[in-house]
């Protein structure tokens, strides 16, 4: 790995739009790609800051997403507000351990993994750590990939609320919690997107 040379060492920057390699010296005059006129940044500017901000927003949103009820069901057997964790417990207790596990992974395990993973990436990049660079890159890809699977919960609630409308017999309505959960998913996805994985490989100057 160390045998491979970096663009910094070569004094080159890459246009991410058309793939043109531009000498970094010329960029000091004009930051635009000579070929496609796209803006050329050596590294995404403020990547870690934006990622951190969005990560914190995600974590903040995650608290009401879990505390507030996501769905309100009413019917002949009474009415109930269910939270995400409450729903998982209910499924688990009634014997549907598979569904419980699925919801748990989609709405608890995945967001948490993302928080931890992005947090870890940010921390290591900030310290210019050279620890497990390859694995951290894989971790980043995983975070990017699993991001949208968290929308499972949102879709379940949306479908249930749309389908279960039998007036007195039974009705389901979404509650505020699911909006926060949706915000968690979106914000963490944006957070992961704004992270520049090239930072993992940067060396301190």
């Amino acid at each position, binding site marked *: 790995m160390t045998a491979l040379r970096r663009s910094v060492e070569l004094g080159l920057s890459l246009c991410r739009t058309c793939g043109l390699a531009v000498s970094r010296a010329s960029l*000091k005059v004009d*930051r635009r790609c000579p070929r496609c006129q796209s803006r050329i940044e050596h590294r995404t500017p403020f990547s870690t800051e*934006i990622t951190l*901000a969005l990560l914190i*927003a995600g974590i903040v949103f995650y608290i009401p997403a879990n505390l507030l009820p996501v769905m309100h069901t009413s019917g*002949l057997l009474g009415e109930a507000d269910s939270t995400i964790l409450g729903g998982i417990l209910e499924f688990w207790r009634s014997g549907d351990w598979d569904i419980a596990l699925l919801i748990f992974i989609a709405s608890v395990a995945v967001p948490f993994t993302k928080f931890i993973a992005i947090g870890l990436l940010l921390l290591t990049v900030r310290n210019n750590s050279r620890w497990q660079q390859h694995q951290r890159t894989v971790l980043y890809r995983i975070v990017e990939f699993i991001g949208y699977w968290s929308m499972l919960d949102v879709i379940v609630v949306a479908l249930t609320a749309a389908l279960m409308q039998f007036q007195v017999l039974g009705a389901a309505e979404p509650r505020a919690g699911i909006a926060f959960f949706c915000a968690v998913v979106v914000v963490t996805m944006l957070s992961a997107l704004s992270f520049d994985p090239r930072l993992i490989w940067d060396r301190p100057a």
Partner: protein
Amino acid sequence: MSAPPTPASEEELPTPAVQNRRWIPRLVWVVPIVAALIGISLLIRNLENAGPRITISFLSGEGVQVGKTLVKYRDVSVGRVSAVRLSADHQTVLVSADLSKDAASLLKADTQFWIVRPRIGVGTVSGLDTLLSGVYIGMKTGAATRRERQFVGLENPPALSHGPHGHELQLHAARAGSLAIGAPVYFRQFQVGHVIDENLLPDGSTRVTVFVEAPYDGFVKPVTRFWNVSGIDVRLGADGLNVQTESLAAVIAGGLAFDDGPIEAVPAADIPGDFTLYKNETEAMAPPDGDPRYIRMRFAQALRGLEPGAPVEFVGVNIGSVIAVDLGYARQDKSFPVIVTAKVYPRRMGQAYDALAAQGKTESEATLATFVGTLVHRGLRAQPRSASLLTGKLYIALDFLPASPRAAFDASIRPLELPTVNGTFQELEANIGRLVEKVNDLPLEQIVADLHTDLKDLHESLNELHTQVLPNAVDTLSALHRTLDSADRTLDVESPLQRSLTETLSESRNTLQAVRELADYLDRHPDALLRGRRPQKMPERPASLSSDARP
């Protein structure tokens, strides 16, 4: 490109450009700040909305579910059970509930909570919705000013949870009768309220709390009398059989009724909270009895059929009742007199009492005793009498029997002891006994035996008549029949005898006519007897006379 000039130029050039751009990407920090603001606002709102957490203790937590069971006030959810646990001594179930903020003002020291379960009573079916939805905790706010967070739940729902406006009244009675909570209260057979509570007071009497609904509570006045209408009132009076009941529900669940009592000069404007509950309408409508006086009587005869509660009548007016029938022992003559204690209400004597009161005879017990003494001198005696031949029940009659032997009366004894005479029913009994004896003495068996022989003889005679006399009679009758038959034939128009008789008669008639003509002729011509008949000379003679031709 040489390395050394690069860092130098980098430091010089990008500085203004980077500065320019630096705060725009930092706008992204708005996102977590907004998220935090939303979170904090939610938290604040939650804290603001968070109502009080109360703890209610129940004997049983049947059906109560954490997070599901609601607390309802006027059927609107105001809270939710947040925890159910056992008390430290394991005697009660502590149910914690989070109430909404606006329900906090309902929490008074005397706010009541109870678990609503399906309940089917006589008057009502309630809580049926809980069959499907599970139980909920009902709530009724109180009137106290003190706030409270710890409550003791009721095991039975109060019948009136949050009713309309009206008056709550306390009725006092020695016994409540068969009243159920929720039993109706009637005013002239309209239901105007219901029983909401029953209590046994420490002194053993009962207190019934009733609620009279708003437009009707105006009927409750200071003179109002309440009475029990439980069951069916069957009365056999002089006007026939009288069956009365307020409603079918009252028959089963019991009920109360009220109406204006006898008007008295009680102009009190306020409705008193407490009333007396009477046993029945008659008792309720009776003028007030006043204080009872106790009297005692010793009877030297068995008084089977005299029971506590039997009426005591003074000159036919019910003035009290027997309260005890005891057996005493008289040492002097080693007898067992029956000691009857009765309470009498002098006020029931009505106008007589008023008259006596005017004379000051009822002022104290002593004056009354003296007055009774004079009455005894005039022949006042207590006498057991038969109230009904059918049941053999007795009552005590206080009557003037001047013929009775003189009796001593000690006005100083308390309770007053009235002299007695034996009941008439014993003489009656003796008479009936004698009658029965006489009937017994009759030689019934002899009579029956004789009668039997006589009947046998009669039977034999009849038998004889049947076998011997009757056939002869039949023969005789048939002979008679034949005789009559021939007589009939003889007398028939067609019979020869009849015809010859007719001819004979017609012959004799002709003969007689001829004789008459002759006589006529001789009358007109007497000479003809001598000269014989002359030829007809006078044609002018009427034809009728001359028409007859001589055959």
